[in-house]
């Protein structure tokens, strides 16, 4: 066996988390979209068939995400233990909500009930919110624990949901309605606002240099490709330029894809741990003390 070779210099600094790989990321990616889609489906004014398709798609997305996670956890055959800590664990809550999502979702598809669709939508929102809180509860990852990550995750889930709804409607041939297009435009605005608020807040409150580097590099692309471009396309569709279905589809896919890339970036690439730090360098004999050392962070006044 080749010897284990970490580098001492990297041990104290924030490290990219290695425990949640693409499978965990897939849960946030698919599950968030699914939850958002369920909510949007309830209020998007789709016809009954499209609503059923949308709900089904939403459930499928959530199921896909949870399946990925199931494959990731160390002890999949005890997965039911996940229900043991509703009091404080957002993962437990997510799992509980997932049950509600699937139960009400199945009923809604089966019955076509508008009321149930609204209930499913509420459950979808709850699922989305739970996921956002799962991330935010992780104090070990500064980019996640920032409070502004919650609205960001929720807003992107909703935007992706709307994107899916529009794409579904476009593919169904019916073509998305103005209400849905307008909703997506609004959600895009909200998402970009949440993103800027998140990144600005994170930069101000401090985060591992490596995490900020990833996010700073990602930001402009996210804003341009994920927001500017679909907004232009949406506006074009709204003002009645020809090929509305195709442009709406394009806009929807751009919103979904950019959201997914953003979540992958957040869950994987920018997910640097807190790292370890010394508040005061120790006094050795009659030597001096010293200022704090926090490898991998830009030292900020007042910060530690």
């Amino acid at each position: 066996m080749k010897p284990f070779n970490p580098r001492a210099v990297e041990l104290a600094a924030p490290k990219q988390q290695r425990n949640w790989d693409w499978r965990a990321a897939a849960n946030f990616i698919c599950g968030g979209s699914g939850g958002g889609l369920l909510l949007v489906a309830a209020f998007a004014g789709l016809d009954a068939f499209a609503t059923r398709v949308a709900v089904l798609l939403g459930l499928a997305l959530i199921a896909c995400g949870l399946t990925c996670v199931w494959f990731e956890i160390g002890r999949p055959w005890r997965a039911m233990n996940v229900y043991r800590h509703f009091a404080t664990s957002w993962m437990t809550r997510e799992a509980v909500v997932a049950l509600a999502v699937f139960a009400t979702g199945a009923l809604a598809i089966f019955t076509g009930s508008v009321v149930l669709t609204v209930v499913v939508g509420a459950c979808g929102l709850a699922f989305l919110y739970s996921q956002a809180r799962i991330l935010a509860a992780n104090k070990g990852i500064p980019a996640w624990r920032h409070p502004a990550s919650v609205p960001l995750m929720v807003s992107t889930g909703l935007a992706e949901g709307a994107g899916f709804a529009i794409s579904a409607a476009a593919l169904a041939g019916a073509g998305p309605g103005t209400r849905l297009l307008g909703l997506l435009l609004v959600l895009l605005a909200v998402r970009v606002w949440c993103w800027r608020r998140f990144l600005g807040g994170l930069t101000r409150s401090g985060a591992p240099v490596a995490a900020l580097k990833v996010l700073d590099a990602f930001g402009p692309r996210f804003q341009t490709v994920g927001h500017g471009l679909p907004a232009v396309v949406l506006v074009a569709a709204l003002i009645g330029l020809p090929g509305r279905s195709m442009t709406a589809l394009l806009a929807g896919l751009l919103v979904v894809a950019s959201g997914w890339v953003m979540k992958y970036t957040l869950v994987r690439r920018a997910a640097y741990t807190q790292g370890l730090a010394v508040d005061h360098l120790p006094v050795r004999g009659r030597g001096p003390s010293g200022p704090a050392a926090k490898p991998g962070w830009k030292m900020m006044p007042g910060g530690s």
Partner: protein
Amino acid sequence: MEAAQPKSVKRVPSYCYNCVSGPDLMNVKVVDGVATEIEPNFAAADVHPAKGRVCVKAYGLVQKTYNPNRISTPMKRTNPKKGRNEDPGFVPISWDEALDIVAGKLKAVRAKGLLDEAGLPRVAVSLGHGGTPSNYMGTFPAFLAAWGDVDFSFGSGQGVKCVHSEHLYGEFWHRGFTVASDTPNARYVIAVGANVDVTGGPCAVTRHADARVRGYKRVQVEPHLSATGACSAEWVPIRPKTDPAFLFALIHVLVRENGLQKLDIPFLRDRTASPYLVAPDGLYLRDPHSGKPLVWDENSASAVAHDTPGAKPAVAGCYRVGKAVVVDADKERREYSEVEGKTAYEMLSEHIEKYSPEWAETICDVKAATIRRIANEYLEAASIGETITIDGKTLPLRPVSVTLGKSVNNGWGAFECCWARTVLAALVGSLENPGGLVGTTVRLNKSRDNRHLSVAPGEDGFMVQYFNPTSKEEWQQSPSTRNLHQTLVPIVGANGAWSQALGPTQLAWMFQNERPDDWSMPMPTLPEVWLVYRSNPSISFWDTRHLAETVARFPFMACFAYTVDETNYMADVLLPEATDLESTQMIRMGGTKYMEQFWDHKGVVLRAKAVEPQGEARDFTWITTELARRTGLLEPYVKAINKGISGVSPLQGEGYDFRLDPATPPSSEQVWDAVCRAATRTMSEGREEHDLKWFEENGFYTVPMSRLEWYLTPTMEQHGLRYELPYQERLMRAGRELGRRLHEKKMNWWDEQLSEYTALPEWHDVPGRWIRNLEKSGAKAADFPFWLLTTKSMQYHAGGNAAIEVMHEVAQNLRGHAGVIMNAKTAASLGIAEGDRIEVRSHIGATYGKAALVQGVRPDTLVIIGQFDHWATPFARTMEAPSLNSIAPMSLDLTDATGSGADIVRVAVRRMEGRAAA
């Protein structure tokens, strides 16, 4: 934590002596017959300075025991060709066959005679790191004693990896084979490369931690920020190998800027040769009748013999002496009348004038103001006049010292450093006084267990010394060992158990290949039988590629083998011995031993067999007894055991007789049972007797010891003796005589080394020697702009545990392990990033490793931790770690007068192609 409930759990007391800073105490936890954990032995908390704790290395012993890469049966070589590229084709054989092969070779040697045609022993033995093997090799010393002449010349690093000049000069000046600060009382320590928090073992680490919390100040003077530097109050990044200049400047500040009145005048006057009058020719002025050195008696205003009762010798000044003689080399006597004699202190004062801090700044790259401040802090902290009472005796308290580290106190410049730091101690009276600089053991003198017993009056009011003779009649002109220790190094002597092994070990290796043109002694031969234990010179010496080629030429080699390694790859027979946890042995502990092992107790400790040996590995004592029996040496071997060789004390003494029958091969248990009983009888002065069984349960036995035993000065005072400082007349004469002998034999190849024999050391561009050496070999100095140094690692220390996975794992938490430490700015200027694979090239070869970029190293210096570059040792060979040893040359030019060298070489560095490894 065990999955299954254990049926039996026991804790077996033992010791760790994997480095020279041992022994430390531990327990082995054994679950159902399997060793599972190492734990401290808190039963020793009250007697052991580190409270019964062992360092990190001991925690690798469980893996060491069960390492699947161990040699588990005796093996013999099937490929007669030897070399790095020759698969030895080792095949398992029985112990009978293995022992018969080795004994057969030994018997053949005995039949021919122990010495060969060159007068050199036909049998050579190499034992590894710093005497540690003797704590694991059972009764093997008794076998060697029974055998007779053995050549210990083929070192695995002694002389070049140890603190060689400190061993020799430390023992010469103050019976300090190893020298330490009296840390429990210290207030100010200038550590020049002394990496005590890494190499000093738990005792040193504990004590220095206590001292830090107490508020002592340690100034670390070293080119890189070692762990010890990190834990010091101040780091002074000195230019490599310029330490003598720094220390000379400290003396300058004390002597020239502060002056005698601020120094410890009584100590200088009564305990040193400072008052001895020196003639203009540099020799002591002596009484014409008695031949005793003269001092100027301030009471009678006349020159009198140094030991004249009631005299008050003047420490400083020039005095006119009516009649006197000097005695030069070969006892040549010259008479003087009305001659001006300067005191030795005066000579020092004049000598040191030119070595000001401003001068030193240009050499050392340390600001003059810093040097001056440190010197003055040292003087102030010395608190001259303060006293301390220990066990009812009032002694001076001088809580300052200068300690030296590897590569500072060996190789060129080391004599100067050892001299300067000992003089610095003498100037303030801290030499061998509480709080000051203490020697902790002797190895070149007897008794090795009590250095005070080695103090006896010798010549000129100094301690007795046992130099190798340099007179025309007695000089050993035909070397008796392959490292020429008696021929070339007077100071190493031939009196102590270690004298031979501390000769110029690289000469033994170098001269196998080529000799100087004007060599006029018998050609060195290869030993017919070479026995190796815990030693891997093919990794741990220099120019290791060529050294391994030399090893391949040895005609017969038997190695006690743990795993295959780079040296035993060339062996003919491998003998797997039971390792640390698998065999039994008793050794001394406490008292005063190496490094900072000076205790308030002394006693003995048993390494009890905790688990059965793996495979066919056998207890070393059993192997040795079998070898003795098969070579027909059973009787002298058992008698040697009875004399106390290999044990602790003789097996027969006042009121007891545990001697073994010389006609019967004793079992290991019989041997150690007798040793246990004799040891306790001796230690307790007959009051107590404990057998092996008692020790297997209790581990150790101690009796209290007075702290007064830590300090030699009271003993010197008792004998009315002076330390041979600051003036080195005896060494100067010895050098002159040695030069004459060599020149009489038409040999000039040692002339450069003879320049070291001076009464007062001069600065001689020490680092320049390495630059000139590479230029001499045809390389351009500008092509090798960096210094490469090594530093030790507590996890590996000398590296005998490089095959142990857990040591590698935990060592990686510290920067630079298995890499090349370099200054981040320097690296940036060379386009080298953290983790890049780099080539470090000297004029003889290259070594490769990953760059470890730090701020805590001089921009002109690279550092490689430890000694790796393994190519045969399982596990270690996968580390891809670089090593200075692969690229440091062995050269007469780089060998000092003691026969020592230093771990330093000029190198170039470049990034290898390809992206940085993750």
